[in-house]
C-alpha cells in the first residue's frame, strides 16, 4: 500500500510545486520558492537555462512568446486602442488607465526580473551556503515555520487576486453580455459581434487569472527571500540566547565523535559558538544586501506606480453613475482597491519585520548568559551589539525604505493626488 502511494506521488510530483507532495524533512532551501518557480514555469516565464542549440531551448522560447502574446501584447493593444478612441475625454481615459497600467506593470516587473537573472540565481545559491544550514532541532523548527510563511503568502495572495478577477469575469453576465470583462477594442474587427465576442470572452477568462498569478508571483518572490532572511535572524537570536547550552551540546558531540582531545575547555566551545554567530550575522548582512541589489529598482517603481493606480481607482469609484443599479461594478472596484492596497502592504510588512527582527538581535545578545564569560570573550558580544545598533533594512531605489512608515506615506500621497484630480475633474 505504501509502495503504491509512493509511486502515485512520484508520478504526480511534476505537476505540483516542489514541497506539496514531497516531505520537508531535509528543509531544502528551494522549498521557499518552489510555488513561485512552479507558476513561472507554467507560464513559460522562468529563466531559460537550456543550452542555446538544443531543441528544448527553442520550444521553451516559443511557448514563452506565445504566452506573452496572449496575456501581454494582445490585450495591451486592445486596451490602448480603446483608450485612444476616447482620448478627448480625459475623465474616461483616467478611468480606463488604471487597469492598463497595473497589467502592463506586471510585465515590466517580469522584464526587470529577467534583467536581474544573475542576481536572483546567486540569491538562490546563497541560501544553500553552509552558514545557513540548520544544526540543531530548534533551528529546523524555525526554518519550517518560515518556509510555511513564505509559501502561505504566495498561495493566499494569488488566490485572493484570482478570486477578485473572477468577479470581474462574472461582470458581463450581470450586464447582459453587453461588455467584456476588460474594455478592449481592436482596429480590424468589431468586438461585440457574436462569434468574436465569445472567443474574446474565453481569451479574457484565460488571460486575466494568468496576469493575476504572475503579478502575485512577482510581488511575493521578494517576500519569500525576506522571509528566509528573517528565519536565519531568528536562528541567530536563538543561538545568542542559548550559547552556553549549544556549547555544551557541541562538547558532548565532540566527545562522542572521539574528536575531544582534552585540552579544549568549555571556553573553547563557547568561543567557537560565538564566532559562528558572528559569521552567520555577516552572511545574513551580505544576503540582505544582495536581495536589495536584485529587487531595489522593481520595488521603487512598484511604489510609485501604486500611488498613481490607487488614486485612479479612487476617481473611477466616484465616477460610476447610479451606484445602486450597478452593484457588481461597485464590488469589483472595492475588491480591486483592496488587492492593490494589500500588494504594497506585503512588501512593506516584510521589510518592517526585517527591521524589527534585526533590532531584536541586540536584545537577544543581552539576554544570553554573558555574565559567566571572561572579559576577553565578552568582546565578541560587545562588538556584536555595536553592529546591531544599526538594523538591517531594505531600501527601494535608495529613496524609500520598505517599512510600514513608508506605507503610510504612500497612502497619504495617493490620497492627496486623488483629491487634486477629483477637483480638476469638476
Amino acid at each position, binding site marked *: 500500500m505504501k509502495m503504491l502511494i509512493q509511486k502515485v506521488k512520484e508520478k504526480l510530483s511534476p505537476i505540483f510545486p516542489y514541497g506539496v507532495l514531497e516531505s520537508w524533512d531535509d528543509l531544502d532551501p528551494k522549498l521557499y520558492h518552489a510555488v513561485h518557480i512552479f507558476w513561472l514555469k507554467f507560464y513559460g516565464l522562468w529563466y531559460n537555462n537550456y543550452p542555446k542549440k538544443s531543441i528544448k531551448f527553442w520550444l521553451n522560447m516559443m511557448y514563452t512568446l506565445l504566452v506573452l502574446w496572449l496575456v501581454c501584447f494582445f490585450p495591451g493593444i486592445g486596451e490602448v486602442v480603446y483608450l485612444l478612441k476616447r482620448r478627448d475625454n480625459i475623465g474616461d481615459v483616467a478611468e480606463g488607465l488604471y487597469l492598463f497600467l497595473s497589467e502592463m506593470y506586471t510585465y515590466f516587473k517580469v522584464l526587470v526580473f529577467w534583467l536581474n537573472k544573475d542576481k536572483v540565481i546567486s540569491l538562490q545559491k546563497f541560501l544553500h551556503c553552509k552558514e545557513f544550514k540548520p544544526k540543531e532541532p530548534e533551528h529546523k523548527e524555525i526554518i519550517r515555520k518560515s518556509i510555511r510563511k513564505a509559501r502561505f503568502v504566495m498561495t493566499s495572495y494569488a488566490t485572493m487576486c484570482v478570486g477578485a478577477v473572477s468577479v470581474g469575469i462574472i461582470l458581463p453576465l450581470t450586464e447582459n453580455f453587453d461588455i467584456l470583462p476588460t474594455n478592449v477594442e481592436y482596429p480590424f474587427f468589431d468586438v461585440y459581434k457574436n462569434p468574436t465576442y465569445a472567443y474574446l470572452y474565453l481569451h479574457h477568462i484565460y488571460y486575466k487569472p494568468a496576469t493575476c498569478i504572475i503579478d502575485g508571483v512577482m510581488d511575493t518572490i521578494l517576500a519569500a527571500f525576506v522571509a528566509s532572511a528573517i528565519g536565519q535572524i531568528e536562528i541567530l537570536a536563538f543561538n545568542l540566547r542559548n550559547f552556553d547550552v549549544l556549547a555544551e551540546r557541541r562538547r558532548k558531540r565532540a566527545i562522542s565523535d572521539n574528536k575531544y582531545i582534552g585540552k579544549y575547555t568549555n571556553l573553547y566551545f563557547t568561543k567557537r559558538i560565538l*564566532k559562528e554567530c558572528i559569521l552567520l550575522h555577516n552572511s545574513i*548582512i551580505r544576503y540582505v544586501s544582495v536581495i536589495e541589489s536584485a529587487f531595489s529598482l522593481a520595488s521603487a517603481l512598484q511604489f510609485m506606480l501604486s500611488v498613481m493606480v490607487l488614486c485612479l481607482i479612487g476617481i473611477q469609484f466616484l465616477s460610476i453613475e447610479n451606484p445602486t443599479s450597478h452593484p457588481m461594478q461597485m464590488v469589483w472596484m472595492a475588491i480591486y482597491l483592496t488587492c492593490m492596497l494589500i500588494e504594497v502592504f506585503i512588501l512593506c510588512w516584510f521589510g518592517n519585520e526585517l527591521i524589527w527582527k534585526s533590532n531584536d538581535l541586540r536584545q537577544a545578545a543581552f539576554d544570553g548568559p554573558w555574565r559567566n564569560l571572561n572579559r576577553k570573550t565578552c*568582546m565578541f558580544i*560587545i*562588538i556584536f551589539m*555595536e553592529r546591531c*545598533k544599526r538594523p538591517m533594512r531594505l531600501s527601494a531605489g535608495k529613496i524609500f525604505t520598505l517599512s510600514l512608515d513608508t506605507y503610510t506615506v504612500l497612502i497619504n500621497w495617493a490620497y492627496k493626488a486623488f483629491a487634486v484630480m477629483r477637483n480638476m475633474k469638476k
Partner: protein
Amino acid sequence: MMTKVKTQGLVTDLMPCIRLLQAAGHFLFNYHADTSGMNMLLRKIYSSAHAVLIVVHYICMGINMAQYKDEVNELTANTITVLFFAHSIIKLAFFAFNSKSFYRTLAVWNQSNSHPLFTESDARYHQISLSKMRRLLYFICGMTVFSVISWVTLTFFGESVRMIASKETNETLTEPAPRLPLKAWYPFKTMSGGGYVFAFIYQIYFLLFSMALANLLDVIFCSWLIFACEQLQHLKAIMKPLMELSAALDTYRPNTAELFRVSSTDKTEKVPDAVDMDIRGIYSTQQDFGMTLRGAGGKLQNFNAENNPNGLTAKQEMLARSAIKYWVERHKHVVRLVASIGDTYGTALLFHMLVSTITLTLLAYQATKINGINVYAFSTIGYLVYTLGQVFHFCIFGNRLIEESSSVMEAAYSCQWYDGSEEAKTFVQIVCQQCQKAMTISGAKFFNVSLDLFASVLGAVVTYFMVLIQLK
C-alpha cells in the same frame, strides 16, 4: 612668464578649479608664484573690475524690476530672474569676506601621515579622487556653457514684448521691448543700433561670468567632499590587512611575509609624482608614531623575536603595531577636514537654500500658467531644472559623505576581527562606536545636506504646484 608655484595637498589637486575661479573674478589672491606688488595690484584690479561690472548690471536689472512692478506676471518673471542671479552676487561677496577660511580648508591636507605598508592604497584612492574631481569640473563647466548658449538661443524665438497693466481699462497690454536675453534698464537706447549691440555683449558677459562664479564655488565644495569620501574608502580598504597584521602579532599565521611586502609595482595605477616618499627609516616622522627605539612606553620595549609566534623582526613588529595608529590618525584628519569644510561653506549653503526656496515657489506659480509648447514653457522649465539641478548637485555629494562615513562601521565589522588580537578587538569596538554617527555637512546648523533635503525641496515644489493649480 609665471614660474610654477610650489603647492601641496588639496591645492595641487584643485589647481585647475582655483585658476578658473581666479579667471572668473573671485577675490582669490593666493597660490600665485609671483607675488610682487605690481602683479598683486593688477590681480586686485581685475577682480574688482569684474565685481563692479556684475554688480552694476544686477542693479540695472533691479531698477527694471522696480519700474514694471504693476503687472503681476511681469513682476513675477523679473523677480525670478533677479533671485536667480542673486546666487552669484551672494557667492562673490561670501568668498571675498570668507577667503581666510577657504585658504585654511585648502591647507588642511598639507601634512598627512603615511605608513609604508599602506602608501599604495593611499595613492590609488588619491588618483581616483583626482579623476572624479576633474570629471566634475568638466561637467559643470560644460553645463554652464550649455546654459548660456541655450539662453541666448532662446532669446531669438518668440515675441520680444513686455506686459504693461493699463491703469484705465485694468487689462494687460503688450509693449515692444528690446530682444535681449535679460530685461534690464540701461541709461541709453537699446531698441536698435550701437546701444543694442553693446547691451547684448554686456549681457552675454554677465550671463557667463555670473553663472561661472556661482557654479565654480559649488564645484570646489563638492571636490572637497569627493576627496573626503575617497579617503574614507581608503580607510575601509585597509581595514582587512590591518586586522591580519594585528593578528600576526599574537597568533601563529602562515604567510606573514606577504603582509609585510610593500608592492612597488602596480599595473593599474600611475604613481603620482607629487608624493614625497620619505623612506629614511621605518616611518615618515618618528613623532608620527610616538615611539622611539630608545624605549618610550613600557609595552614596546621588548622587541625580541622569541615573544612573537611568527618570528617577525623588530622592524616588522613596529610596522604592525603602528598600523592601527596610522588608521586612527588618518580618520581624525578626515574628521578635521570635514569640520573645516562645514565651517567654511555652511553659511553659503544656507543662503543658497533660502534663495532657492523662494525662487522655486515663484517658479511653481509660473508653471501653472504654461499652456502649450512655447518659449514661455521652455524658459520656465529651464529655470526649474537649473535651480533643482544646483540643489541636487550639492545634496548628492553631501549624501555620499554620510553614506561613506557610516559604512566604515560595517567595513570594520565585516573584516575578520574575531581572529585578531585584543588590541584589534578594542580598536574595532571603538571604531564601531565612533562611526555610529555619520559625518554630515550642515547649512549653518539649520539643515543637513543630504538627499532627504532634496526630496523635501522637490516635495514642497510639487505641493505648491498642486495647491496653486487649484486656486487658478
